């Protein structure tokens, strides 16, 4: 017996696609773990917002926070955002040279679109496409 392989969408790239609209921002995923549902993966994402002044960095961090909270509403062909939660920050963490930076960490849970080209959910395999009636 083999377990189905569920190909996960590239959440890190999707988050970067969204937050890179704000200048001076970097983002990366530092952890990922499977949820209690085997097709849901919880990603831990860190987003740094830098600028020339502390206030400007704070403003950018706030823009990022709003983008992150709005992720479930952004159309994404490869996946579905199921949950977003800020777990740290945004908090003031200047670089060693004094460069202004605000840092925040978020937990984002996502799963593939049912029957998408990037993955198939097990329920879709067992019961046919969700929300579709061909008869």
């Amino acid at each position: 017996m083999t377990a189905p392989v569920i190909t996960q969408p590239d959440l890190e790239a999707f988050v970067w696609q969204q937050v890179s609209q704000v200048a001076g921002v970097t983002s990366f995923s530092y952890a990922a773990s499977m949820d209690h549902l085997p097709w849901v993966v919880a990603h831990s994402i860190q987003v740094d917002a830098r600028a020339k002044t502390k206030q400007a960095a704070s403003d950018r961090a706030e823009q990022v926070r709003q983008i992150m909270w709005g992720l479930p509403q952004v159309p994404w062909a490869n996946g579905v955002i199921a949950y977003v939660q800020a777990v740290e920050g945004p908090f003031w963490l200047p670089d060693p040279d004094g460069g202004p930076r605000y840092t925040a960490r978020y937990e984002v849970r996502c799963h593939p679109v049912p029957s998408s080209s990037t993955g198939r959910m097990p329920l879709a395999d067992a019961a046919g496409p969700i929300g579709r009636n061909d008869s």
Partner: protein
Amino acid sequence: MASLSRYKITHPQAPRLAADPLIAELASRIRDQVAARTPHGATGQLAAGWQITKGRAPALYIIHNPTPYAAYVEYGTANMPAEPSLGPVVAGYRR
């Protein structure tokens, strides 16, 4: 008509006091796992620096590292990628 029941809380701290030993053990376990994940440099100061401080309320423990550069290793800098150790362990415990 059903009569209302009234309850008087006689010991508001009781739930926290009951949970305190479990939380203390959990904090100790997290600290050990974080220390095991922490990059070991020439001195090992960062990995050895993880401490648990009891908070002001029962069942409140703070895991911290007083090493001056701990935050730079955990979160990275403009010139150095992050090597997080606390974040991934805590993320695992959020499951």
